[in-house]
């Protein structure tokens, strides 16, 4: 178990290292002169030179990458000529536009993203798993049809179409809700929930199709297994067969998928956040890309990658914990 965990974490670390090299190469070497980008359009040549020295861009590529990694692990100091600017431990540099530390900038956005992700998760689990289970247990009938509709509409549809239509119906025409604008939980919990209701529904519905399909197929598969037949032959009631035994086999894949998805969504539900103006990690990325704020873009990509890769490991661990037939090697 420990050995497996170490192996997986080592693998994850390697992946992230590879990602950091690729990202570093792409973003700091390709697009012209980073010093000019950092300094802005109206900088004089002299100012650009100063910025280059401050950011350590006059060193060789490998040294620069070394500094970059060192910043992430141990923090880093930038000298401005007169003073020293310290960047704390997971240092991803300073934003070109706001001069804020990228790490801090991203951390500030985490609550909004988490608010969206966790609320949407509740919805996709309730709707997705609910529909999937019902349609597996009662084949045919209305749940079956609901599943077909959900699957058809949800398979590969862009999430923003659903969001736009919801916004249009609920806010513009029915006027049940004002157009949402994000309110932090710490500020006003009630407004927080009301303003996040539509984003939750949008993302939740969108993801639920996948869960409905997965739950349905894994439940059906478990029900077809030998041990279930044995239970039935012993005269165990249908309720106990389903509740105690079939679910045990059907749930692990759902848990694993959920952990994976949560990682992806935390890494950036870019479309939902942008559509509803939620100041989360995904929206930060889009905003940074528009103004070519390279350190922020790099920071978000690395943070997102970390979230996804770690979620992958967690998903496998949860799967093994929930399904004791799976042995971790």
């Amino acid at each position, binding site marked *: 178990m420990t050995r497996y965990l170490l192996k997986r974490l080592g693998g994850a670390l390697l992946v992230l290292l590879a990602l950091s090299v690729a990202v570093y190469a792409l973003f700091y070497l390709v697009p012209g002169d980073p010093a000019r980008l950092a300094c802005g359009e109206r900088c004089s040549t002299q100012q650009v030179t100063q910025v280059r020295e401050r950011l350590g861009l006059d060193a060789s590529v490998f040294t620069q990458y070394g500094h970059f990694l060192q910043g992430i692990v141990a923090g880093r100091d930038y000298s401005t000529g007169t003073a020293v600017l310290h960047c704390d431990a997971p240092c991803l540099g300073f934003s070109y536009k706001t001069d804020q530390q990228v790490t801090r900038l991203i951390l500030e956005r985490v609550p909004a993203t988490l608010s969206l992700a966790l609320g949407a998760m509740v919805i996709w689990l309730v709707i997705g798993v609910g529909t999937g289970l019902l349609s597996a247990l009662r084949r045919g009938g209305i749940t079956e049809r609901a599943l077909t509709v959900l699957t058809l509409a949800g398979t590969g549809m862009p999430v923003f179409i659903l969001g736009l239509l919801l916004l249009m119906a609920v806010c513009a025409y029915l006027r049940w809700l004002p157009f949402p604008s994000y309110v932090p939980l710490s500020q006003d919990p009630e407004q927080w929930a009301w303003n996040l209701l539509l984003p939750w529904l949008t993302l939740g519905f969108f993801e639920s199709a996948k869960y409905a399909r997965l739950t349905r197929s894994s439940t059906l598969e478990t029900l077809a297994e030998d041990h279930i037949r044995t239970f039935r032959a012993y005269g165990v009631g249908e309720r106990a067969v389903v509740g105690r035994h079939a679910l045990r086999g059907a749930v692990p894949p759902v848990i694993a998928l959920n952990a994976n998805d949560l990682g992806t969504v935390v890494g950036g539900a870019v479309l939902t956040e942008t559509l509803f103006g939620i100041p989360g990690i*995904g929206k930060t990325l889009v905003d940074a890309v528009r103004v070519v704020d390279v350190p922020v873009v790099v920071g978000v990509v690395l943070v997102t990658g970390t979230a996804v890769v770690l979620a992958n490991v967690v998903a*496998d661990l949860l799967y093994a914990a929930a399904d004791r037939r799976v042995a971790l090697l």
Partner: protein
Amino acid sequence: MSTAVTAGASGARQVWRRLRGRPSAMVAGGVLVLLVVLALAAPLLAAIEGQDANSYHDALVDSARGGVPIGSFGGVSGDHWLGVEPGTGRDLFVRLLYGAQVSLLVAVGATAVQVLIGVVIGLAAGLGNRLLDTFLSRVTDVMVALPMLVLAIALTAVVPADFPRPLLLILVIGLLNWGGTARIVRAQTLTLKQLDFVAAARLGGSGRVRVARRELLPSLAAPVITYGAILLPSNIVIEASLSFLGVGVTPPTPSWGQMLSTAQTWFRADPTYVLLPAGLLFVTVLAFTVLGDAVRTALDPREASRLRVGTRAGRRARTGGDAATSLKETAS
């Protein structure tokens, strides 16, 4: 799992017959043919309507009301069949058609790149020695795991503004999302490699490249086409998403996703402007999905329909990344 579906002439005819047996597939196919024809004929249709994509018509929008098109349904008239764009008065019919062009071009191009890279990497991994296989499989795992949309958005930031955007989108989507194809091709190659006809070719003195080209590629056609049919609609969605976020196709080139992002301010004043591109995108993706599912079952009748009866992927042995499970995963 399809191992050796022959893709010869008789096979193609058989597949066609099975496709014809499914009304949903024929409807979806019809919709797509119509869409392709409309997209290709965009300049012609624009000429017939007598409009172009980028002329502003200030007289057709009500500047006092913030630029809402004059007339019902977003200013539908004999001159402007689907009305005009709010604010600018550009002809919506022509813009939607050119939007279809962009959407299809990017999706088809990106799918081609994905399939090409996927087949090459998958074949190399399947036929190469253990070291090469391990290396390529790890790279593939990484590509599959990474959040594709986030990387695509990020990549659009580093490319100079004068680089042609549709080509950029094709490359970005294509280069980031080939992992699934590579996995399938690798798994198939490993299975095919064991079969007698491949062994016979090897004994007959054919080299690896020749075996790959002459013996393996034809047998790989079915699974690759199947997977490509799933990739196409997802590429359409990715293009629309990137354009929606403002990092895809740049104005004045029209794109559905871009229209939808500007449409947000016109919900109440001009609902047609929201519903037209949204509806087109919805129908296109739906048609591709339905057709893709039908092609899948037609190429391998043993596979159950993905849409009708859920997946057979069943329990996913998520621990360990061996070929069989990853194939199942990507297929679901």
